[in-house]
Protein backbone atom coordinates (compact mmCIF):
# COMPACT_ATOMS: atom_id res chain seq x y z
CA UNK A 1 0.00 0.00 0.00
CA UNK A 2 1.42 3.33 -0.97
CA UNK A 3 1.04 6.52 1.01
CA UNK A 4 -1.49 5.14 3.44
CA UNK A 5 -1.16 8.13 5.75
CA UNK A 6 -2.73 10.82 3.58
CA UNK A 7 -5.08 8.56 1.80
CA UNK A 8 -8.78 8.92 2.49
CA UNK A 9 -10.39 5.81 3.85
CA UNK A 10 -12.15 4.26 0.87
CA UNK A 11 -15.34 2.30 1.43
CA UNK A 12 -16.21 -0.16 -1.34
CA UNK A 13 -19.98 -0.53 -1.59
CA UNK A 14 -21.68 -3.41 -3.36
CA UNK A 15 -25.05 -2.79 -5.02
CA UNK A 16 -26.84 -5.67 -6.72
CA UNK A 17 -30.56 -5.05 -6.36
CA UNK A 18 -33.08 -2.31 -5.98
CA UNK A 19 -33.69 -3.09 -2.33
CA UNK A 20 -30.09 -2.54 -1.33
CA UNK A 21 -29.91 0.86 -2.98
CA UNK A 22 -32.23 2.09 -0.29
CA UNK A 23 -29.71 1.13 2.39
CA UNK A 24 -26.83 2.56 0.44
CA UNK A 25 -27.88 6.01 -0.64
CA UNK A 26 -28.24 7.60 2.82
CA UNK A 27 -24.86 6.11 3.77
CA UNK A 28 -23.17 7.55 0.67
CA UNK A 29 -24.65 10.96 1.49
CA UNK A 30 -23.01 10.75 4.94
CA UNK A 31 -19.68 9.62 3.48
CA UNK A 32 -19.73 12.54 1.04
CA UNK A 33 -19.99 14.97 3.95
CA UNK A 34 -16.78 13.65 5.52
CA UNK A 35 -13.46 14.87 4.08
CA UNK A 36 -11.60 11.85 5.47
CA UNK A 37 -13.81 9.31 3.73
CA UNK A 38 -14.42 8.34 0.14
CA UNK A 39 -16.38 5.56 -1.53
CA UNK A 40 -16.49 3.45 -4.67
CA UNK A 41 -19.76 1.92 -5.76
CA UNK A 42 -19.70 -1.42 -7.54
CA UNK A 43 -22.99 -1.94 -9.38
CA UNK A 44 -23.85 -5.43 -10.49
CA UNK A 45 -26.63 -7.95 -11.23
CA UNK A 46 -30.00 -6.31 -11.83
CA UNK A 47 -28.72 -2.76 -11.49
CA UNK A 48 -27.05 -3.02 -14.88
CA UNK A 49 -29.76 -5.03 -16.68
CA UNK A 50 -32.12 -3.44 -19.17
CA UNK A 51 -34.84 -5.96 -18.50
CA UNK A 52 -34.87 -4.93 -14.84
CA UNK A 53 -35.05 -1.24 -15.57
CA UNK A 54 -31.31 -0.50 -15.42
CA UNK A 55 -31.49 1.17 -12.03
CA UNK A 56 -27.85 2.14 -12.41
CA UNK A 57 -29.21 5.12 -14.35
CA UNK A 58 -31.19 6.15 -11.30
CA UNK A 59 -27.97 5.96 -9.28
CA UNK A 60 -26.19 8.16 -11.83
CA UNK A 61 -29.04 10.64 -11.74
CA UNK A 62 -28.49 10.90 -8.00
CA UNK A 63 -24.92 12.03 -8.81
CA UNK A 64 -23.46 8.99 -7.11
CA UNK A 65 -20.21 7.97 -8.73
CA UNK A 66 -19.98 4.41 -9.90
CA UNK A 67 -16.53 2.90 -9.72
CA UNK A 68 -17.40 -0.17 -11.71
CA UNK A 69 -20.36 -1.78 -13.47
CA UNK A 70 -20.12 -5.55 -13.47
CA UNK A 71 -22.33 -7.44 -15.90
CA UNK A 72 -22.62 -10.88 -14.36
CA UNK A 73 -26.16 -12.12 -14.83
CA UNK A 74 -26.80 -15.02 -17.17
CA UNK A 75 -30.19 -15.14 -18.85
CA UNK A 76 -32.58 -17.93 -17.91
CA UNK A 77 -33.09 -17.08 -14.23
CA UNK A 78 -32.94 -20.65 -12.96
CA UNK A 79 -31.09 -21.91 -9.91
CA UNK A 80 -28.31 -22.94 -12.23
CA UNK A 81 -27.82 -19.59 -13.94
CA UNK A 82 -28.12 -17.79 -10.61
CA UNK A 83 -25.08 -19.58 -9.17
CA UNK A 84 -23.16 -19.30 -12.39
CA UNK A 85 -23.83 -15.56 -12.43
CA UNK A 86 -22.43 -15.25 -8.92
CA UNK A 87 -19.24 -16.96 -9.96
CA UNK A 88 -18.67 -14.32 -12.64
CA UNK A 89 -19.01 -11.62 -10.01
CA UNK A 90 -16.54 -13.45 -7.80
CA UNK A 91 -14.10 -13.63 -10.68
CA UNK A 92 -14.09 -9.87 -11.19
CA UNK A 93 -14.43 -8.43 -7.72
CA UNK A 94 -10.89 -9.02 -6.34
CA UNK A 95 -9.31 -6.98 -9.14
CA UNK A 96 -11.83 -4.20 -8.73
CA UNK A 97 -11.20 -3.95 -4.98
CA UNK A 98 -7.48 -3.83 -5.63
CA UNK A 99 -7.81 -1.08 -8.23
CA UNK A 100 -9.99 0.89 -5.88
CA UNK A 101 -7.54 0.42 -3.00
CA UNK A 102 -10.57 -0.30 -0.86
CA UNK A 103 -10.05 -0.06 2.90
CA UNK A 104 -13.44 -1.45 3.91
CA UNK A 105 -16.05 -3.49 2.02
CA UNK A 106 -19.57 -2.44 2.92
CA UNK A 107 -22.31 -4.92 2.12
CA UNK A 108 -25.96 -5.18 3.00
CA UNK A 109 -28.80 -7.62 3.27
CA UNK A 110 -28.89 -11.23 2.24
CA UNK A 111 -28.31 -11.69 -1.46
CA UNK A 112 -25.77 -13.78 -3.35
CA UNK A 113 -23.63 -10.90 -4.64
CA UNK A 114 -23.27 -9.65 -1.10
CA UNK A 115 -22.06 -13.03 0.13
CA UNK A 116 -19.55 -13.16 -2.73
CA UNK A 117 -18.27 -9.73 -1.71
CA UNK A 118 -17.99 -10.85 1.92
CA UNK A 119 -15.95 -13.90 0.95
CA UNK A 120 -13.70 -11.88 -1.35
CA UNK A 121 -13.19 -9.15 1.27
CA UNK A 122 -12.41 -11.66 4.03
CA UNK A 123 -9.91 -13.59 1.91
CA UNK A 124 -8.20 -10.38 0.80
CA UNK A 125 -8.01 -9.27 4.44
CA UNK A 126 -10.05 -6.16 3.78
CA UNK A 127 -12.49 -5.59 6.66
CA UNK A 128 -16.08 -6.43 5.76
CA UNK A 129 -18.97 -4.52 7.34
CA UNK A 130 -22.50 -5.91 7.00
CA UNK A 131 -25.73 -3.93 7.21
CA UNK A 132 -28.94 -5.68 8.29
CA UNK A 133 -27.11 -8.55 9.94
CA UNK A 134 -28.85 -11.12 12.10
CA UNK A 135 -32.33 -10.92 10.66
CA UNK A 136 -34.30 -13.94 9.59
CA UNK A 137 -35.51 -14.60 6.09
CA UNK A 138 -37.07 -17.94 5.23
CA UNK A 139 -35.10 -19.25 2.25
CA UNK A 140 -31.64 -19.35 0.70
CA UNK A 141 -31.43 -15.61 1.42
CA UNK A 142 -31.62 -16.37 5.15
CA UNK A 143 -28.78 -18.85 4.89
CA UNK A 144 -26.81 -16.30 2.90
CA UNK A 145 -27.35 -13.60 5.49
CA UNK A 146 -25.89 -15.69 8.30
CA UNK A 147 -23.04 -16.96 6.12
CA UNK A 148 -22.21 -13.30 5.46
CA UNK A 149 -22.07 -12.77 9.23
CA UNK A 150 -19.33 -15.38 9.52
CA UNK A 151 -17.24 -13.60 6.88
CA UNK A 152 -17.87 -10.10 8.25
CA UNK A 153 -15.71 -8.18 10.71
CA UNK A 154 -18.25 -5.54 11.66
CA UNK A 155 -21.99 -6.21 12.05
CA UNK A 156 -24.76 -3.64 11.78
CA UNK A 157 -28.02 -5.27 12.93
CA UNK A 158 -31.14 -3.11 12.75
CA UNK A 159 -32.53 -3.99 16.15
CA UNK A 160 -31.84 -5.77 19.44
CA UNK A 161 -33.49 -8.99 18.33
CA UNK A 162 -31.14 -9.26 15.33
CA UNK A 163 -28.08 -8.22 17.36
CA UNK A 164 -28.71 -11.06 19.81
CA UNK A 165 -28.88 -13.54 16.98
CA UNK A 166 -25.51 -12.36 15.64
CA UNK A 167 -23.92 -12.74 19.08
CA UNK A 168 -25.45 -16.20 19.49
CA UNK A 169 -23.72 -17.19 16.26
CA UNK A 170 -20.44 -16.83 18.13
CA UNK A 171 -19.56 -13.29 17.10
CA UNK A 172 -17.68 -11.04 19.51
CA UNK A 173 -19.85 -8.34 21.14
CA UNK A 174 -17.45 -5.52 20.26
CA UNK A 175 -18.04 -6.19 16.56
CA UNK A 176 -21.80 -5.70 16.84
CA UNK A 177 -23.36 -2.23 16.47
CA UNK A 178 -27.15 -1.96 16.68
CA UNK A 179 -27.85 0.93 14.33
CA UNK A 180 -31.41 0.61 12.98
CA UNK A 181 -32.22 0.14 9.30
CA UNK A 182 -30.64 2.82 7.09
CA UNK A 183 -33.24 2.51 4.35
CA UNK A 184 -35.65 4.13 6.77
CA UNK A 185 -33.49 7.25 7.04
CA UNK A 186 -34.73 8.74 3.79
CA UNK A 187 -38.31 7.71 4.43
CA UNK A 188 -38.21 9.44 7.78
CA UNK A 189 -36.38 12.44 6.28
CA UNK A 190 -39.21 12.63 3.75
CA UNK A 191 -37.58 11.55 0.48
CA UNK A 192 -40.98 10.44 -0.71
CA UNK A 193 -42.75 11.41 -3.95
CA UNK A 194 -45.91 13.34 -3.01
CA UNK A 195 -49.23 11.52 -3.37
CA UNK A 196 -50.44 13.98 -6.03
CA UNK A 197 -47.48 13.13 -8.28
CA UNK A 198 -47.82 9.41 -7.58
CA UNK A 199 -51.46 9.44 -8.67
CA UNK A 200 -50.51 11.21 -11.88
CA UNK A 201 -47.55 8.94 -12.66
CA UNK A 202 -49.36 5.67 -11.95
CA UNK A 203 -52.77 6.82 -13.22
CA UNK A 204 -54.48 6.38 -9.88
CA UNK A 205 -57.63 8.01 -8.50
CA UNK A 206 -56.76 9.02 -4.98
CA UNK A 207 -60.34 8.91 -3.71
CA UNK A 208 -60.67 5.21 -4.58
CA UNK A 209 -59.02 2.21 -2.85
CA UNK A 210 -55.58 1.22 -4.09
CA UNK A 211 -53.56 -2.00 -3.80
CA UNK A 212 -49.80 -2.33 -4.29
CA UNK A 213 -48.54 -5.81 -5.21
CA UNK A 214 -44.90 -6.93 -5.09
CA UNK A 215 -43.99 -10.61 -5.22
CA UNK A 216 -40.54 -12.25 -5.29
CA UNK A 217 -39.75 -15.89 -6.02
CA UNK A 218 -38.52 -18.10 -3.19
CA UNK A 219 -35.69 -20.27 -4.41
CA UNK A 220 -36.61 -23.50 -2.64
CA UNK A 221 -40.30 -23.21 -3.44
CA UNK A 222 -39.65 -22.80 -7.13
CA UNK A 223 -41.28 -26.12 -8.08
CA UNK A 224 -44.55 -24.88 -6.61
CA UNK A 225 -44.17 -21.32 -7.83
CA UNK A 226 -46.69 -21.59 -10.69
CA UNK A 227 -49.27 -23.13 -8.40
CA UNK A 228 -48.66 -20.50 -5.72
CA UNK A 229 -48.79 -17.66 -8.23
CA UNK A 230 -52.12 -18.91 -9.62
CA UNK A 231 -53.63 -18.81 -6.14
CA UNK A 232 -52.13 -15.43 -5.31
CA UNK A 233 -53.17 -13.86 -8.61
CA UNK A 234 -56.69 -15.32 -8.45
CA UNK A 235 -57.09 -13.77 -5.02
CA UNK A 236 -55.66 -10.45 -6.19
CA UNK A 237 -57.80 -10.30 -9.31
CA UNK A 238 -60.98 -10.92 -7.31
CA UNK A 239 -60.69 -7.28 -6.20
CA UNK A 240 -61.86 -4.58 -8.57
CA UNK A 241 -59.71 -1.92 -6.91
CA UNK A 242 -56.93 -0.06 -8.70
CA UNK A 243 -53.83 -2.22 -8.41
CA UNK A 244 -50.21 -1.31 -9.07
CA UNK A 245 -47.92 -4.29 -9.69
CA UNK A 246 -44.16 -3.88 -9.44
CA UNK A 247 -42.28 -6.63 -11.25
CA UNK A 248 -39.79 -8.63 -9.25
CA UNK A 249 -36.02 -9.00 -9.23
CA UNK A 250 -33.87 -11.34 -11.31
CA UNK A 251 -33.91 -14.42 -9.05
CA UNK A 252 -34.62 -17.90 -10.31
CA UNK A 253 -38.35 -18.00 -11.03
CA UNK A 254 -38.83 -14.35 -11.94
CA UNK A 255 -39.88 -15.32 -15.46
CA UNK A 256 -42.64 -17.51 -14.07
CA UNK A 257 -43.92 -14.67 -11.92
CA UNK A 258 -43.93 -12.25 -14.83
CA UNK A 259 -45.83 -14.71 -17.00
CA UNK A 260 -48.38 -15.46 -14.31
CA UNK A 261 -48.98 -11.79 -13.68
CA UNK A 262 -49.52 -11.17 -17.39
CA UNK A 263 -51.85 -14.16 -17.59
CA UNK A 264 -54.05 -13.07 -14.72
CA UNK A 265 -53.96 -9.35 -15.24
CA UNK A 266 -57.22 -7.40 -15.30
CA UNK A 267 -57.84 -3.93 -16.73
CA UNK A 268 -57.67 -2.48 -13.19
CA UNK A 269 -54.04 -3.64 -12.83
CA UNK A 270 -51.06 -1.59 -13.96
CA UNK A 271 -47.68 -3.27 -14.32
CA UNK A 272 -44.37 -1.48 -13.85
CA UNK A 273 -40.78 -2.65 -13.96
CA UNK A 274 -38.19 -0.81 -11.96
CA UNK A 275 -39.37 2.40 -10.36
CA UNK A 276 -37.31 5.05 -8.53
CA UNK A 277 -37.08 4.59 -4.76
CA UNK A 278 -38.83 7.87 -4.02
CA UNK A 279 -41.74 6.68 -6.11
CA UNK A 280 -41.80 3.34 -4.31
CA UNK A 281 -41.85 5.20 -1.01
CA UNK A 282 -44.54 7.46 -2.46
CA UNK A 283 -46.62 4.42 -3.38
CA UNK A 284 -46.26 3.02 0.15
CA UNK A 285 -47.48 6.40 1.36
CA UNK A 286 -50.40 6.49 -1.09
CA UNK A 287 -51.91 3.01 -1.37
CA UNK A 288 -54.28 1.35 1.11
CA UNK A 289 -52.60 -2.03 1.37
CA UNK A 290 -49.37 -3.72 0.30
CA UNK A 291 -49.82 -7.33 -0.83
CA UNK A 292 -47.09 -9.88 -1.57
CA UNK A 293 -43.89 -11.02 0.09
CA UNK A 294 -41.60 -8.02 -0.16
CA UNK A 295 -39.50 -7.13 2.87
CA UNK A 296 -40.79 -3.58 2.51
CA UNK A 297 -44.05 -4.75 4.12
CA UNK A 298 -42.09 -5.61 7.26
CA UNK A 299 -39.39 -2.93 7.16
CA UNK A 300 -40.81 0.15 5.50
CA UNK A 301 -44.59 -0.08 5.51
CA UNK A 302 -44.82 0.49 9.31
CA UNK A 303 -43.27 3.95 8.85
CA UNK A 304 -46.26 4.84 6.63
CA UNK A 305 -48.72 3.03 8.90
CA UNK A 306 -49.55 0.90 5.85
CA UNK A 307 -51.24 -2.49 6.30
CA UNK A 308 -49.28 -5.34 4.66
CA UNK A 309 -50.66 -8.73 3.67
CA UNK A 310 -47.58 -10.92 3.77
CA UNK A 311 -47.88 -14.12 1.75
CA UNK A 312 -45.87 -17.28 2.38
CA UNK A 313 -42.48 -17.94 3.94
CA UNK A 314 -40.18 -15.29 2.49
CA UNK A 315 -40.32 -13.07 5.59
CA UNK A 316 -40.66 -15.89 8.10
CA UNK A 317 -39.16 -15.22 11.53
CA UNK A 318 -38.58 -11.50 11.03
CA UNK A 319 -39.74 -9.13 13.71
CA UNK A 320 -43.05 -7.50 12.74
CA UNK A 321 -44.99 -4.34 13.47
CA UNK A 322 -48.75 -4.51 13.99
CA UNK A 323 -49.34 -3.66 10.31
CA UNK A 324 -48.56 -7.17 9.05
CA UNK A 325 -51.17 -9.87 8.39
CA UNK A 326 -49.51 -13.21 7.58
CA UNK A 327 -51.22 -15.61 5.20
CA UNK A 328 -50.44 -18.83 3.38
CA UNK A 329 -50.66 -19.46 -0.38
CA UNK A 330 -54.39 -19.81 -0.03
CA UNK A 331 -56.88 -17.86 -2.14
CA UNK A 332 -59.51 -17.53 0.58
CA UNK A 333 -56.98 -16.54 3.23
CA UNK A 334 -55.42 -13.90 1.01
CA UNK A 335 -58.79 -12.42 0.04
CA UNK A 336 -59.93 -12.32 3.63
CA UNK A 337 -56.68 -10.67 4.73
CA UNK A 338 -56.87 -8.00 2.03
CA UNK A 339 -60.46 -7.22 3.02
CA UNK A 340 -59.54 -7.04 6.66
CA UNK A 341 -56.45 -4.87 5.95
CA UNK A 342 -58.61 -2.40 4.05
CA UNK A 343 -61.30 -2.23 6.72
CA UNK A 344 -61.93 0.88 8.77
CA UNK A 345 -61.14 -0.89 12.03
CA UNK A 346 -57.72 -2.03 10.83
CA UNK A 347 -56.96 1.46 9.56
CA UNK A 348 -57.82 2.81 12.99
CA UNK A 349 -55.46 0.30 14.56
CA UNK A 350 -52.68 1.56 12.26
CA UNK A 351 -52.54 4.88 14.14
CA UNK A 352 -50.68 3.01 16.85
CA UNK A 353 -48.23 1.35 14.43
CA UNK A 354 -44.55 1.91 15.28
CA UNK A 355 -41.67 0.80 13.09
CA UNK A 356 -39.50 -1.66 15.06
CA UNK A 357 -36.62 -1.19 12.63
CA UNK A 358 -35.45 2.35 13.04
CA UNK A 359 -35.60 6.02 13.83
CA UNK A 360 -33.91 7.67 10.84
CA UNK A 361 -30.32 8.06 12.12
CA UNK A 362 -28.83 4.73 11.07
CA UNK A 363 -26.60 6.00 8.26
CA UNK A 364 -24.88 8.46 10.61
CA UNK A 365 -24.15 5.68 13.11
CA UNK A 366 -22.85 3.33 10.43
CA UNK A 367 -20.52 5.91 8.90
CA UNK A 368 -19.21 6.89 12.35
CA UNK A 369 -18.20 3.26 12.96
CA UNK A 370 -16.70 2.84 9.48
CA UNK A 371 -14.61 5.94 10.05
CA UNK A 372 -13.39 5.22 13.54
CA UNK A 373 -12.79 1.46 13.37
CA UNK A 374 -9.07 0.74 13.69
CA UNK A 375 -8.01 -1.49 10.83
CA UNK A 376 -5.58 -3.88 12.46
CA UNK A 377 -5.15 -7.54 13.24
CA UNK A 378 -7.59 -7.28 16.11
CA UNK A 379 -10.31 -6.33 13.65
CA UNK A 380 -9.22 -8.68 10.91
CA UNK A 381 -8.59 -11.82 12.92
CA UNK A 382 -11.85 -13.15 14.22
CA UNK A 383 -12.26 -15.13 17.43
CA UNK A 384 -15.23 -17.34 17.97
CA UNK A 385 -16.76 -16.74 21.37
CA UNK A 386 -17.36 -20.44 21.72
Amino acid at each position, binding site marked *: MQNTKNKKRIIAIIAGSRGEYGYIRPIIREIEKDPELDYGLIATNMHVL*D*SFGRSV*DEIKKDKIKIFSEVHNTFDGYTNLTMVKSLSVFMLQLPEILKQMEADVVLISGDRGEQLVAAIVGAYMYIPVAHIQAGEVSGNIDGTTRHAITKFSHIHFPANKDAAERVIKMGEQKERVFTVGAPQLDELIAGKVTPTKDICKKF*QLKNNEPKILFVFHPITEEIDNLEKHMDKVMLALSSFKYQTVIILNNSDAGSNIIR*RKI*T*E*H*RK*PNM*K*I*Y*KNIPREDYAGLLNTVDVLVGNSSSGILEAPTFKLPAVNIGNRQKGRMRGINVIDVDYNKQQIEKAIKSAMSASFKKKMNKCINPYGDGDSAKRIVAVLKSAKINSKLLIKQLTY
Partner: protein
Amino acid sequence: MKINDLKLNNFIVDKDQTIKEAMAAINDNHRGAVVVVDKSYLMVGIVSDGDIRRSIVGGRDIMSTVEEIVNANPIFIKDGQSVFGEAEKIFKDRVEINIIPIVDKNNNLTNIIIRNPLM
Protein backbone atom coordinates in the same frame (compact mmCIF):
# COMPACT_ATOMS: atom_id res chain seq x y z
CA MET B 1 -59.29 -12.73 -38.33
CA LYS B 2 -58.00 -15.91 -36.76
CA ILE B 3 -54.91 -16.40 -34.68
CA ASN B 4 -53.16 -18.18 -37.56
CA ASP B 5 -53.60 -15.14 -39.70
CA LEU B 6 -52.39 -12.94 -36.89
CA LYS B 7 -49.16 -14.83 -36.68
CA LEU B 8 -48.22 -13.94 -40.21
CA ASN B 9 -49.09 -10.29 -40.16
CA ASN B 10 -47.03 -7.31 -39.18
CA PHE B 11 -49.11 -6.22 -36.20
CA ILE B 12 -47.51 -8.69 -33.81
CA VAL B 13 -44.00 -9.33 -32.56
CA ASP B 14 -42.75 -11.91 -30.10
CA LYS B 15 -41.37 -10.44 -26.85
CA ASP B 16 -37.96 -11.94 -27.61
CA GLN B 17 -37.68 -10.27 -31.03
CA THR B 18 -35.45 -7.25 -31.36
CA ILE B 19 -36.42 -3.61 -31.35
CA LYS B 20 -35.20 -3.49 -34.94
CA GLU B 21 -37.69 -6.19 -35.95
CA ALA B 22 -40.47 -4.30 -34.19
CA MET B 23 -39.48 -1.18 -36.13
CA ALA B 24 -39.70 -3.14 -39.38
CA ALA B 25 -43.16 -4.40 -38.45
CA ILE B 26 -44.34 -0.90 -37.58
CA ASN B 27 -42.86 0.35 -40.83
CA ASP B 28 -44.96 -2.17 -42.73
CA ASN B 29 -48.20 -1.79 -40.83
CA HIS B 30 -48.36 2.02 -40.96
CA ARG B 31 -50.06 2.21 -37.55
CA GLY B 32 -47.18 3.37 -35.37
CA ALA B 33 -47.28 0.41 -32.98
CA VAL B 34 -47.19 -3.39 -32.65
CA VAL B 35 -48.70 -5.80 -30.15
CA VAL B 36 -46.15 -7.81 -28.16
CA VAL B 37 -46.97 -11.44 -27.32
CA ASP B 38 -45.13 -14.44 -25.92
CA LYS B 39 -44.84 -17.90 -27.49
CA SER B 40 -48.31 -18.92 -26.28
CA TYR B 41 -49.90 -15.67 -27.53
CA LEU B 42 -50.23 -14.20 -24.09
CA MET B 43 -50.54 -10.44 -24.62
CA VAL B 44 -47.49 -8.84 -22.98
CA GLY B 45 -48.13 -5.26 -24.11
CA ILE B 46 -47.65 -2.79 -26.95
CA VAL B 47 -44.57 -1.12 -28.37
CA SER B 48 -45.08 2.16 -30.19
CA ASP B 49 -42.87 4.42 -32.28
CA GLY B 50 -42.63 6.67 -29.25
CA ASP B 51 -41.54 3.84 -26.93
CA ILE B 52 -38.79 2.96 -29.39
CA ARG B 53 -37.70 6.57 -29.81
CA ARG B 54 -37.53 7.10 -26.04
CA SER B 55 -35.58 3.89 -25.54
CA ILE B 56 -33.00 4.85 -28.16
CA VAL B 57 -32.66 8.38 -26.80
CA GLY B 58 -32.15 6.69 -23.42
CA GLY B 59 -29.16 4.82 -24.84
CA ARG B 60 -30.63 1.46 -25.71
CA ASP B 61 -29.41 -0.66 -28.59
CA ILE B 62 -31.88 -1.60 -31.37
CA MET B 63 -30.80 -5.21 -30.98
CA SER B 64 -32.27 -5.32 -27.44
CA THR B 65 -35.46 -7.34 -27.09
CA VAL B 66 -38.83 -5.62 -27.26
CA GLU B 67 -39.64 -7.06 -23.84
CA GLU B 68 -37.20 -4.59 -22.36
CA ILE B 69 -39.13 -1.57 -23.62
CA VAL B 70 -42.67 -2.91 -23.84
CA ASN B 71 -45.46 -0.81 -22.44
CA ALA B 72 -47.09 -3.38 -20.17
CA ASN B 73 -50.17 -1.21 -19.62
CA PRO B 74 -51.74 -0.69 -23.03
CA ILE B 75 -55.40 -0.05 -23.71
CA PHE B 76 -56.95 -3.43 -24.48
CA ILE B 77 -60.42 -4.97 -24.70
CA LYS B 78 -61.65 -8.25 -23.25
CA ASP B 79 -63.28 -10.43 -25.88
CA GLY B 80 -67.06 -10.14 -25.79
CA GLN B 81 -70.01 -8.90 -27.70
CA SER B 82 -69.43 -5.17 -27.54
CA VAL B 83 -65.84 -5.24 -28.77
CA PHE B 84 -66.43 -3.03 -31.78
CA GLY B 85 -68.52 -0.51 -29.88
CA GLU B 86 -65.81 -0.21 -27.24
CA ALA B 87 -63.11 0.08 -29.86
CA GLU B 88 -64.97 2.84 -31.66
CA LYS B 89 -65.27 4.76 -28.42
CA ILE B 90 -61.55 4.38 -27.67
CA PHE B 91 -60.56 5.50 -31.16
CA LYS B 92 -62.79 8.53 -30.76
CA ASP B 93 -61.44 9.53 -27.34
CA ARG B 94 -57.77 8.71 -27.90
CA VAL B 95 -56.55 10.02 -31.24
CA GLU B 96 -53.04 8.64 -30.64
CA ILE B 97 -54.25 5.03 -30.46
CA ASN B 98 -54.34 3.14 -33.74
CA ILE B 99 -54.40 -0.50 -32.70
CA ILE B 100 -56.27 -2.22 -29.87
CA PRO B 101 -55.49 -5.79 -28.79
CA ILE B 102 -58.48 -8.01 -27.99
CA VAL B 103 -57.77 -10.69 -25.39
CA ASP B 104 -59.67 -13.68 -24.00
CA LYS B 105 -60.27 -14.25 -20.30
CA ASN B 106 -56.70 -15.55 -19.89
CA ASN B 107 -55.22 -12.49 -21.59
CA ASN B 108 -54.32 -14.42 -24.72
CA LEU B 109 -54.48 -12.34 -27.86
CA THR B 110 -57.49 -13.27 -30.01
CA ASN B 111 -57.68 -10.30 -32.33
CA ILE B 112 -56.44 -6.82 -33.03
CA ILE B 113 -58.70 -3.96 -34.00
CA ILE B 114 -57.06 -1.47 -36.30
CA ARG B 115 -58.14 2.10 -36.81
CA ASN B 116 -59.57 2.65 -40.23
CA PRO B 117 -57.75 5.61 -41.68
CA LEU B 118 -60.98 6.81 -43.32
CA MET B 119 -62.91 6.70 -40.02
